[in-house]
Every structure is written in structure tokens, then in C-alpha cells.
């Protein structure tokens, strides 16, 4: 099986977001970067599927040169090869991203049997790149998946709905977008890191495209600050806490 997984390099935020002075981007000068959470699970899922069913794995990303860090991290987890669609680091629209990725996938010597995406990137939250790629490649697609089984060329995918699960079936080759929780990603091993360090990354120049959805600026929403009532320090506050519970009707009188 040839499994491909797409990841995005996103900043690792703390408790506050600050913007650059032109309000066009997040100020990342003090921040580290990571693979967006859903996608980290997609990488792990790709590895498990390849381990279970035999095959190869490839990780792709559209991003600045520094995104090779995320590709290396994915390879350190075990992904065999990596492709960087190198941009200058600015925002790319979902349409442009999907078009570039689909083109890169088509250009691979062998077609993918399964393409995994994160359901949405933590930063842009567009919820659509995977679906667009599927359409371009003419592949069936299902999103928001938290469980995958593959049997005899058919993929069964489950997703949460109404407290229970809805189960989809689709033929391979297919596109699946997954959600965090589908698995617990492994840590990179030292050998993995060293192997990743030595593995060259394929670099592609993607074609940008204009979009009819244009960002004007970013805004940090005003903090909804409450008036905090400190009920006390330590165990002594327990009585006052229970009084609050009573007030809220959570415990009987």
C-alpha cells in the first residue's frame, strides 16, 4: 500500500496570541512550531496502516523552508519519504493549497492508495483541503474520522455522531481526513531522528493561485474577562465552594 499523509506547520501557542504590527499574521518570534494536532494523528495512522498492511509512507507539506522541520519530525516517527512544496511562508488559501498538493501527488511515480489529512488545521480551520484534493484526484473522501480499518481493498471509517458512531465504507484508493483521538501518536525514536536527518526531502515549487476569499486582517478577539471571586486558598475554601454548588442548583439543599 502506498500511503500519503499531508501535514501543516503551525505555531505552538501558549495562552496568548500576539499579532505582527500589520495585523496580517501571528507574531511567532517567541514560539516554537509543530505539526497541527489532527495531522500528527494522521501521521501515526499512516504508520500503523503501513505496518499492518505492508507498504510505504510519504509525508507532504505545503509551507516555508522551515516546514522541513515538521517533515523531519514525521520521518523521525517512521515515515519513509517526504515532499516539501516550498512557499515563502505567507498564507495560502485552501483552494491553492489543495491544487498544489493534488498536482504534487499526481507527479509521484506511483499513485497513492490512501491519502490522509487532518480534519482541519489548528490555525486556519478551513475544513476543506482534503475534500478538494479528493475531488481533483477523482477519489472518494470522508472526513472527521476516528477509526480506520482496511480489508481487501475496502476502507471502513467511523466517526462520532450523536454520542455514538456512524460507519462509512469506501473503496480504495480514497482520501480520509482524521481527527485527533484516532490514535495516540508515538514519540520519535533516536534512530528515527538520525535516519530522518539523513533522508533528503523532495522539494517542489508549487504554483500559487488567487482566491475569491481574501483576508483583510487578523484580529485578536477582546478577552472575555470575568470578575473573579477568589473563594479562598487551600482546603479551607471547600465550604464556600459547596455553597456555590448549592447556588447553582447542582446539589440538593
Amino acid at each position, binding site marked *: 500500500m502506498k500511503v500519503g499523509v499531508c501535514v501543516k506547520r503551525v505555531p505552538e*501557542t*501558549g*495562552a*496568548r*496570541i500576539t499579532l505582527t504590527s500589520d495585523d496580517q499574521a501571528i507574531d511567532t518570534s517567541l514560539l516554537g512550531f509543530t505539526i497541527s*494536532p*489532527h495531522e500528527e494523528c494522521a501521521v501515526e495512522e499512516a504508520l500503523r496502516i503501513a505496518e499492518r498492511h505492508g507498504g510505504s509512507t510519504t509525508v507532504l507539506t505545503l509551507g516555508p523552508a522551515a516546514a522541513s522541520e515538521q517533515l523531519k519530525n514525521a520521518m523521525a516517527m517512521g515515515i519513509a519519504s517526504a515532499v516539501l512544496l516550498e512557499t515563502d511562508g505567507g498564507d495560502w488559501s*485552501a*483552494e491553492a493549497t489543495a491544487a498544489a498538493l493534488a498536482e504534487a501527488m499526481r507527479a509521484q511515480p506511483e499513485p497513492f492508495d490512501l491519502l490522509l489529512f487532518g480534519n*482541519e488545521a*489548528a*490555525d*486556519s*480551520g478551513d*475544513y*476543506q483541503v482534503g*475534500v*478538494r484534493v479528493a*475531488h481533483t484526484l477523482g477519489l*472518494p473522501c470522508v*472526513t472527521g474520522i476516528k477509526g480506520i480499518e482496511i480489508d481487501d481493498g475496502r476502507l*471502513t471509517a467511523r466517526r462520532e*455522531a450523536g*454520542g*455514538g*458512531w456512524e*460507519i*462509512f*465504507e469506501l473503496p480504495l484508493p480514497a482520501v480520509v481526513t482524521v481527527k*485527533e483521538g484516532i490514535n*495516540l501518536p508515538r514519540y520519535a525514536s533516536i534512530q528515527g531522528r538520525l535516519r530522518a536527518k539523513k533522508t533528503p526531502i523532495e522539494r517542489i515549487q508549487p504554483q500559487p493561485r488567487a*482566491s*475569491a*476569499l*481574501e*483576508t*483583510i486582517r*487578523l*484580529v485578536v*478577539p477582546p*478577552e472575555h474577562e*470575568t*470578575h*473573579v*471571586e*477568589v*473563594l*479562598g*486558598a487551600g*482546603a479551607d*475554601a*471547600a*465550604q464556600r*465552594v*459547596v455553597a*456555590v*454548588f448549592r447556588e*447553582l442548583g*447542582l*446539589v440538593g439543599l
Partner: protein
Amino acid sequence: MILCLVDNDPVSLEALTFARRFGEVEALVFGDIDVGGYVARARRVVHARLDEYAPTAWAQAVLELEPEIVVAPGTDRGHEVLAHVAARIGAPLAANVIDASVDSEALQLTRQRWGGSLLEEARLTGTPKLLTVAPHAIDAEPSGITTTVEDFTPTLGDEHFRVRVMRREEPAAGTARLDSARVVVGGGRGVGSKEGFAVLEELAKLLGGAVGGSRVVTNLGWRPHSDQVGQTGARIAPDLYIACGVSGAIQHIVGCKGAKRILVINKDQNAPIVARADWAVIGDLHEIVPAIVAELRKNGA
């Protein structure tokens, strides 16, 4: 026409309410949800093969009506269906919009990034205009208008059913659902270990609530991912969220900002989450939570 996709999720009615600002909205209804009072005209989708959800089929139904604007709720299905619509016709899709207004041929809109911790102001041009509405951006509010509902059978082929729900599994009886719990007791890194959650479970049980965890603790394997309160976990909206040893990283706030009230138990009174709380107890949660549990038991809980 302005079309709004509505399904059984009540959040759809918020989208329907939101869509009114663009003009006269028609509802495209999947399922039995009652849209009375929201729109003048509603089309209920009726098709032999649509006994179950099939994303491309739903998308096709939308496309057949050739709308100028399509609004959908920002749910799994809403995103998925509109993504298919967008991909089919090569149009952009603005996801999780919280505000929008018409500006001649364009829409000025505000949408969520980082689960709502950051907002993007954008301009959408072209036709059709596709957007999903972030849940709880506004309240669902019928306008009182008289609603006519008619059946609508879209023309669908096999290719629209390549992907569909084959079966369902109902939730196990008695599982406390995080996103519908009235009380959630959440734990963060401050809980210290998997075992440390025992006391939070006790408290949750006494209050008839559910236990949640921050992304840190689910990544560490202390709690299953299904317990995660956060941007990539559950978005909760309890009457009370008790956050124990949680610092308040952005992605966690996204998950719990729907809580009506928040009680924070933390060693650090400057922890970011404290600023968003209604009440705080400063100190070691491993002393405080057992004390609360003891107090509750004393009172016959």
C-alpha cells in the same frame, strides 16, 4: 437564491437565523427537523437512497438548486457537504463565520481561526458564495414567518453514493457525554498523573457530571482522547466547568468557553485561565478537591 442547509442538529437553526441577514432564505432540509417560523420556503429532501447520510449526494442536492449564497452550520456535516460543493464548482468556502454583511457584490465577513481564539476579517466575492456558520455565533431565533414545506427530490446517480453511512452504533448506555454534561470536572498537567484523576472522578460523580482533561493530559496518556476538552477535542457547554490544575492554553479555552460558569482550582493565581473564571480557589488541587468531596459527603451528597 440564498440557501441554508439544515439537518437534525439544532445548531442548524442558528445558521438559518444567521442566513437571514443576506435576504430571503430558503431552507434545504435533511431529516425531520422543524424549521417552522424561520423561513418562508423550505424544501425537504426526499430520496429513496437517502435513508442515510451521503456527503456528495447532499452536495449535489445543493448544487441542483443553483443558489447564489449557501449557508450551512459549522458542524462535521455542514463543513463536509459545503466542502464538496466548493470542490465541485471550484469556489472558495469560508468556514466558521461569526459575522457577515453584504457589501455590493461581496460579503464582508469575520471568521474563526484557532477555534475562535483569533478572528479573520475577509472579503468573499464571486458566485456562489459558500459559508458555514460557527456554532453558537448567534442564537437560533425564528422570525415568526409562516413556513411552507415542500418535498424536493434531487437527481442523484451511483457516483453520489460512493461514500455513505453504512450503519450506526448507538452510544453505550449510561456513558456521560462530555459535550452535553451539566457539570464537567477537568484536569490539566497539575493533576500530576493518571492516578491523580481519581479524586476528580469522585467529585464529578458526586455532582453528576463528567470528567474532562486538557490536551496535555490526553497526550500523556493519563486520560483517553474522548475526555479531551479543547480545540481538537470536545467543546463543552456545561452549567459549571471546574478546571483543576489547568493553566489555560488557548486550545483549551476554545473547548471550555461555552461553559456558563467556571470555577478554577490552581496554584497560580496568575494562570491565564483564572482571568476567565467566575470563582477561583488558589492552592494545591490535591488538597482542595478532596476537601470539597469531604464537604459534599458531609452534606449528604
